[in-house]
């Protein structure tokens, strides 16, 4: 953490963001039952076109039951580290600095892309902009489905 050099920090943040962007939109597209896994237990703000959604479970519910098929393409994205030592709360209380690693950073991710709702290829492609704040996953459970970073806040907007 404090000792981590810029190259390590850049590597960890950009690879974390890339991994997130590459899998999250695929989940929205074709693995909707996994959507909830991307979210922190208590996200602060989740917004879709100005509509506020409570949490990951609610997002998953909406995508599973109310949304038509959607084809996303994240054409351009970037990220920055927000806090190199994000104050996580583990089930045992605040995470002590001694247990923190370089991955205990919070990351700002911004995506620009397009989405097509519905199945027809004639349907319009809508441009969107989406911003995420990702925080380190405070749980230590292992497993393939575990995400290293979770969505703390999200703001999706159709912009074209």
């Amino acid at each position, binding site marked *: 953490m404090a000792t981590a050099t*810029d*190259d390590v920090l*850049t*590597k960890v943040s*950009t690879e974390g963001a*890339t991994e997130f*962007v590459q899998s999250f939109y695929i989940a929205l597209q074709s693995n909707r039952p996994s959507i909830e896994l991307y979210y922190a237990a208590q996200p*602060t*703000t989740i*917004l*879709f*076109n*100005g*509509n*506020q*959604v*409570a*949490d990951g479970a*609610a997002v998953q*519910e*909406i995508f599973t039951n*109310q949304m*038509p098929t959607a084809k996303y393409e*994240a*054409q*351009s*994205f*970037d*990220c*920055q*580290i*927000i*806090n190199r*030592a*994000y*104050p996580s709360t583990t089930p045992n209380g*605040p995470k002590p*600095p001694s247990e923190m690693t370089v991955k205990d950073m919070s990351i*700002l991710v*911004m995506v*620009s*892309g*397009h989405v097509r*709702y519905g199945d027809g290829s*004639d*349907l*319009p492609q*809508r*441009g969107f*902009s989406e*911003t995420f704040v990702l*925080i380190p996953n405070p749980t230590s459970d292992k497993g393939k489905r575990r995400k290293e970073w979770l969505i*703390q*806040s999200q*703001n*999706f*907007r*159709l*912009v*074209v």
Partner: protein
Amino acid sequence: MKTMKSRRPGGASGGGIRKRGPTRTDRDGDMDMDSSARGGKRGRGDSGRSSRAGGGRSAGGSRSAGGGRPQTRDRTLNAIEQAISENNNRSSAQANVRHGKGGKGNSTQISITGWKNSNASTKRDGGVENLISFCERKLNSAPKGSRFKVTKSRVEGDILVVSVHPEWTERLLQLNGKLFAGVNITVELYDSSTAVLGQQLASSGGTSASTADTKLKITSILGKRFNPAAKLLDLSKLVDDTDLQAMGIFNSTTTQSKFFPAMMKVWEMQFTSSSERREAVESVSLAQNQLANVSVVTTMAQTFADIKNLDLSNNNFKDSQSMIAWRWKFRNLEFLDMTGNEFSAKPDFKATMLKWYPKLQILNNVQVRTAEEIAAQKKTPIPIQAPHFQDDSQIAENFIRTFFAGYDNNRNDLINQFYDENSKFSLNVNVQAPKVQQTETAGWDAYIKKSRNLSKITHLTARMNRISNGPQKIAEMWNSLPQTRHPDMATHPEQFLVECHQVPGLPDPTGQSSTGVGGLIINVHGKFDESVDGKVETRSFDRTFIIGPGNGPGGIRVLNDIMCARAYGGHEAWSPESQPIPQAVAPVPTIAANPAAPLAPAAATALPGFPAGYGAPAPGKTETQVQQEQLVIQISTKSGMTLQYSEMALSGNGWNLDAAWKNFEELKAQGSLPPSAFLNGV
């Protein structure tokens, strides 16, 4: 001959690799090597120019490089395609990305005419060498300054085209009208489309015309056919146009085929900004032009990409194939008249046109799609709501207002105010973003080398280099980006979408709090104008800021600033589908179409410190109670105060929202509200 020597490409370095002029590419993407590699191989005495008088080698210099006279037809095609591709290069992002520094920026083309009958015309090269020497001598007559030499030139019919560094343009143009070997020469800025047309007109027996003359004539013809009030450009019955006949346009198929692209080019040159050009014309008529296909007029789809009405009646279009080049063009076309064409009677006619033109409503004067159906195409499964703006004492609002004015006028000042050692800025360009208008946008040359699009920038070093940390690096970056002009937020609020919400867990600038501090995350979507090659271009952007406590005005600083630039995408996407529901009636809007759907209570829990179902109707709750709870949510959201304090403020002021808010502001200003009054203790 000293002039020849001095003209040797590559200059003093003698190497053939670097040259001053731009690298030209022909339509196959091959580099034009005429003034570098070829020159390098040749003897000193050779000029290394791409052309000699009479050779008439025009645009595709490299085609003739291998020897052998290019066929006339080929040359013509090249010239046309060059005229078109010059448009593309200037405007298409992709082309610019690919061609990199192949832009037009670093050399100016000047045409010299009127020298054909000079005393030097008996020379083997028609006097071209002498003419170039003449120009060089004239410009080098002044004792001081750098020396002028022509390293790149070509002959197109009667025109000698020389490419020079822009710094010489003015002085070279001063040679206009000067006496060269017994004749007065004309020196003017070269315009490929009209120049080529003028040259063709001359050779096809029409009136001999200089570039400026051709351009003037076309401008006059366009002027007669343009109705600015109706935003209509009437290009019908061109064959019957006596002005065009007088120019000799229809004397040969070559001039006929070149005329239209040239006319489009002249039209475009009348405008200084692409938005001005776009707004000037909504309707174009090409009726009664005996068109069997669109190939001759195809450039119109670029020049008038956003027109709503197109009249193609009484032409000779036989089937969809005859219009295939305009498939997917004119994406905003609403009205199309194809009556009097064989194609109209074909069974696939209507379906094809509906498919090609998604906004088409009236086809051959019959309604084929309703406005509602078109609106439905844009319908999104997630309703568009007014912006979510959960500000804290107008911190975000004040910051945003200051920011965009400052970014346009004094970037350094803005950095001094709001950016510190821990601030970060990075930029990414979405070169393929969807856009509202089809008019090509300017290239991204000024941005692309700084773009930190992580899907393209995969090397760690580049990822590290393309982020600016701290005020100095950010200033360097910002000052290298083009000047911008954002719309005024006060007078054009609809052109921005600004959303804001709180974000916890930011690094504490004082280092005291191990649990971090709270701040705001602000998302802005909007547009800005910038000047590209002397034209105003409008682009869209998305920008996210995270601001936290700091030493800037209002006690804040910028921690993170990410900007995405993309082609202009309008602001319709975020205008709410219906009037926003006043907050006092319905609390936080939910995504579900049915307000009673599972999300309503969930939304309430999203407000920290509020019990589930707070503000929502429930069995046993009176109407008044629900309204009061909603007022509490409203004032809490606005003030950042807890439920209890918000309730106190309202009940103490007779549940009058304005009075309660005023009271809150007074108390806050006096400092009489304890930290525990606030949700996040900021």
